[in-house]
């Protein structure tokens, strides 16, 4: 609270960007957690806009105009607030307060440590246990003849950014595992991401090898050999480096790099060309500039979209995901995927491949499991990538957003195969940035310790029970379970990728369809449930009445 200079400012204008209609007049409140704008309309109706401080990306004071002092607030949820203050003082006060409030310095300042969704300790504990990575391993059929669940990393000693339980090939010895870990960047050794029961092919992930220009490591070579041997269907494995070749080569000079095909027996190596976090960040920046252009022409928009490169990057992630799924499912070949550290691009493409391969991950709960498994437990640096705390802006990158968008692109091509709708993806996106729940906090390189996890589980709540409780909002009425066994084979021709207006222009309601088919169908499915209930009830009553009248008929005779 000490950061709030002025808790309330009256007569603040909220300017509309699209459509450019009359702006609203209202009161602005600053609380410890939110910025609240209350609009006064003529008929005494109140419309409130709540913006979480953590959602604020930047606050910018624009040059004074005749009508007042403008303040531009950009949000990580792609909301854009253009406020106009009457007095320069108020504007300055709000500006300063927001600067501080939107950039917490210490982890304890995050909303999750304040927030209590009215749950008791038991609920809290159950919430944290709700999603279990171990259960997902057994769902895949682990342990089995070839793969086992290993506890070698239970104290995060082999790799501090990996989960405590790992899927490893049965015939990899402890020496091979630890040796391989030492040859991989940050100890992120090759481990199982997904096991495909039908083909016995496995999807594995790791970080780049410390091969430099000439180094090699026998244990690492044996590790890959073990992965290969765990799939009797195929004598080789694919090793996919998701980076552009040039980037990977540059890493060799720094003692890192990629696998030399001469040293590893039976690998087929290839690059996938997904760009790094900095290029992605800049690309999103450019995309958002396009989204916030004032009445652009079609040509401005399309040229801007092209120049942002955003859809090109989305396509590159999708292409890589499709390659992995095809290898595992169609070619029955196991794949090992890495990028540099193996927590950004690798997480994107492995989780995408899982969705393509396994219908379970297309369900509401399945997506939670997938995010928990491939992103959280494998140490995706949410705090850095989302800029939760005031840290290095060069670490921020929309890696997770891109993954969600790929899922959305798939749902556009396959409208019946996902249990959830677009709103689920957007809600997850907003929650990742909100830090209202503890799931995405502190996934930075060295905080992945037992102690820290315990602290989070004691002081914050888990997002998943909240999402599950509201799952009726996120259902896809067109979802058909009967289709679920199919592997998805999306087209990745450029023309099948669309701009995701629902995400990047989410708050420009005027741009969206004015009638929503989704709402219409959701209310119908709701009506259907009620109708079926009434039906059973009526049938019961009418059966009773009939019996009664027959019985009376007999008595009358």
């Amino acid at each position, binding site marked *: 609270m000490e950061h709030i200079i002025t808790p309330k400012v009256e007569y603040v204008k909220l300017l509309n960007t699209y459509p450019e209609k009359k702006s609203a007049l209202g009161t602005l409140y600053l609380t410890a957690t939110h910025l609240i704008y209350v609009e006064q309309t003529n008929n005494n109706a109140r419309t409130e806009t709540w913006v979480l401080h953590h959602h604020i990306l930047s606050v910018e004071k624009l040059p004074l105009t005749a009508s007042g002092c403008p303040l531009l607030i950009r949000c990580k949820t792609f909301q854009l607030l253009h406020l106009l203050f009457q007095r320069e003082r108020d504007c300055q006060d709000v500006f300063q307060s927001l600067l501080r409030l939107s950039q917490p310095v210490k982890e304890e300042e995050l909303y999750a440590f304040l927030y209590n969704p009215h749950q008791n300790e038991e609920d809290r504990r159950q919430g944290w246990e709700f999603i279990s990575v171990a259960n997902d391993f057994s769902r895949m059929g682990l342990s089995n003849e070839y793969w086992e669940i290993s506890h070698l990393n239970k104290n995060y000693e082999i790799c501090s950014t990996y989960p405590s339980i790992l899927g490893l090939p049965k015939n990899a010895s402890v020496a091979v595992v630890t040796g391989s870990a030492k040859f991989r960047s940050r100890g992120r050794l090759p481990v199982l991401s997904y096991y495909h029961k039908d083909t016995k092919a496995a999807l594995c992930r790791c970080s780049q090898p410390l091969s430099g220009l000439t180094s090699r490591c026998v244990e690492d070579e044996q590790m890959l050999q073990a992965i290969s041997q765990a799939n009797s269907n195929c004598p080789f494995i694919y090793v996919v480096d998701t980076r552009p070749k040039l980037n990977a080569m540059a890493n060799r000079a720094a003692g890192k790099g990629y696998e030399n095909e001469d040293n590893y027996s039976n690998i087929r190596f290839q690059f996938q060309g997904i760009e790094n976090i900095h290029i992605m960040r800049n690309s999103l920046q450019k995309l958002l500039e396009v989204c916030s252009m004032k009445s652009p022409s079609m040509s401005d928009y*399309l040229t801007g979209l092209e120049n942002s490169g955003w859809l090109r990057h989305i396509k590159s992630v999708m292409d890589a995901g499709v390659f992995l799924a095809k290898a595992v499912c169609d070619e029955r070949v196991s794949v090992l995927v890495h990028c540099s550290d193996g927590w950004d691009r690798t997480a994107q493409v492995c989780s995408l491949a899982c969705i393509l391969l396994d219908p379970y991950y297309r369900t509401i709960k399945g997506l939670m499991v997938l995010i928990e498994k491939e992103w959280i437990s494998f140490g995706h640096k949410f705090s850095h990538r989302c800029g939760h705390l005031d840290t290095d802006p060069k670490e921020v990158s929309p890696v997770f957003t891109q993954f969600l968008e790929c899922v959305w692109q798939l749902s556009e*091509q396959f409208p019946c195969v996902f249990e959830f709708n677009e709103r689920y993806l957007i809600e997850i996106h907003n929650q990742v940035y909100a830090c209202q729940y503890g799931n995405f906090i502190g996934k930075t390189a060295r905080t992945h310790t037992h102690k820290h996890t315990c602290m989070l589980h004691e002081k914050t709540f888990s997002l998943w029970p909240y999402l599950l409780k509201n799952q009726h909002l996120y259902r896809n009425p067109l979802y058909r379970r009967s289709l679920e066994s199919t592997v998805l084979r999306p087209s*990745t*021709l450029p023309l099948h990728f669309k701009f995701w207006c629902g995400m990047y222009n989410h708050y420009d309601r005027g741009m969206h369809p004015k009638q929503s088919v989704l709402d219409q169908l959701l209310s119908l499915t709701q009506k259907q449930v009620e109708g079926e209930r009434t039906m059973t009830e009526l049938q019961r009553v009418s059966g009773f009445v009939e019996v009664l009248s027959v019985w009376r008929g007999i008595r009358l005779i």
Partner: protein
Amino acid sequence: MEFAELIKTPRVDGVVLHRPFMPTVEGTLCLTGHHLILSSRQDNTEELWLLHANIDSIEKRFVGSLGTIIVKCKDLRVIQLDIPGMEECLNIASSIEALSTLDSVSLMYPFFYRPLFEVIEDGWQLFVPEEAFKDLESMTDEWRLSEVNKDFSVCPSYPSLLTVPKDIDDESLCKAASFRHGGRFPVLSYYHKKNGMVMMRAAQPLTGTNGRRCKEDEKLINATLCAGKRGYIIDTRTIAVAQQAKARGGGFEQEANYPQWRRIHKAIERSNVLQESLIKLVESCNDQSHSMDRWLSKLEASNWQSNVKEILTTACLAAQCIDREGASVLVHGTEGTDSTLQVTSLAQIILDPSCRTIRGFEALIEREWLQAGHPFQQRCAQSAYSNGKPRSEAPVFLLFLDCVWQILRQFPCSFQFNENFLIMLFEHTYASQFSTFLGNSVAERVKLLLSQKTVSLWSWVNRPQELERFLNPLYEPNNLVIWPSVAPQSLQLWEGVFLRWNRSTKCLDEAYQEMVHIIEYNKELQNKVNSLRRQLAQLETEDSPLQTP
């Protein structure tokens, strides 16, 4: 008959048909006067029946003695036929070329087509101007139906009956006609019941370089204004283009002569530019390259989406003037047969809920396109794959349908018809067994005796068994004006037409079926619940005299 001379080889066996996303079919290829038919003689595979009129262009290729013909259709489909034997292939190719480019209208398929269904409701009688006028009369008495053009001599592209202000006599109409391009003097297009404002359309005034004026023209359009009110003239051309038109005898309304009118210029492209845009768009949609930048830059360069945006924006402007500003509007471009009609018909879809029903939409097409003299035959002679130099071909109507689709996408519950209805109309404008879109004007259609010799599209479409496919299950009539968003983010490429043959529609079809299923099931359930309630109520009343034991 004469077609026989053009068919050098009527039949070839062992022909293989390749279509994207469909299994290949091997069978016998037959050429008839109007169709290319491929039949596998197996029960379970679909036959191909293709109207020659639907063929836009063909390409031949040879590998040894195996010939291949790539057939590119006006509905944008591309199919491949592998034909054994070089001579057969050449014969087939030259026959298709000859049969698909017949110039004489009377040789077109509609004159040979005999319906296999009983015509219950004759489409030719469905939308007569007298009926539309009766509706108007019930709302206002300011207008009359003029027969000044009954022999099409005043304006060859207008119908014989025209709605004009009551106080303007036929003589004045003739004078106004001589002041407008092609004799297209201002006539009523739409009457907005809510506030009594009107939309009129015309062709450009023939002011020329020396600023000609015409008192009758001025009087005619002023007659539509309420006392003290101003109206808007929407010129679909930019001011620069309108200025240039002066040199060729055309021009625009001078403020001095039309003081009660405010003129607004928009920038809808002329028809030859639109054809170029379509060709580029279709070319980029067929590009199999995996470069995203290439796709986006080609999409942008085609300008198709820009055209959609500009047309919709102009239509919204016209609708806004009428509904929000409470002003009357006159719309024209150069000839008044293309961009003008796009704007007036779309404005009506925005303003008038009845245009969003199937009948209402058919009536709109009949009124604002067919009777208003859009030259369908010239515009739809060739489509995006044509090799020939374009004469007057242009996807003017297709752009209108695209804009309707954009509005439908934004208001999915406000239309009685679905996307398939629009796609069907697109197909029939380019090639059809029905003659509705033959000819360039009412006068030409009368001369061709279409209503006696051929079948109307509406006679077929409006049969309940056909209509079913075109009904929008989400439709809930609403009486509101619907304002579409014209932000670039809100306008999408019409995949149903442009990517129709470039993608597998299996998943999308399933989604549509599922949606229909949910809606149907719900209706059924509600009906069951209601009937059970009634039964129960009945049982209870029958029982009521009895005392509960």
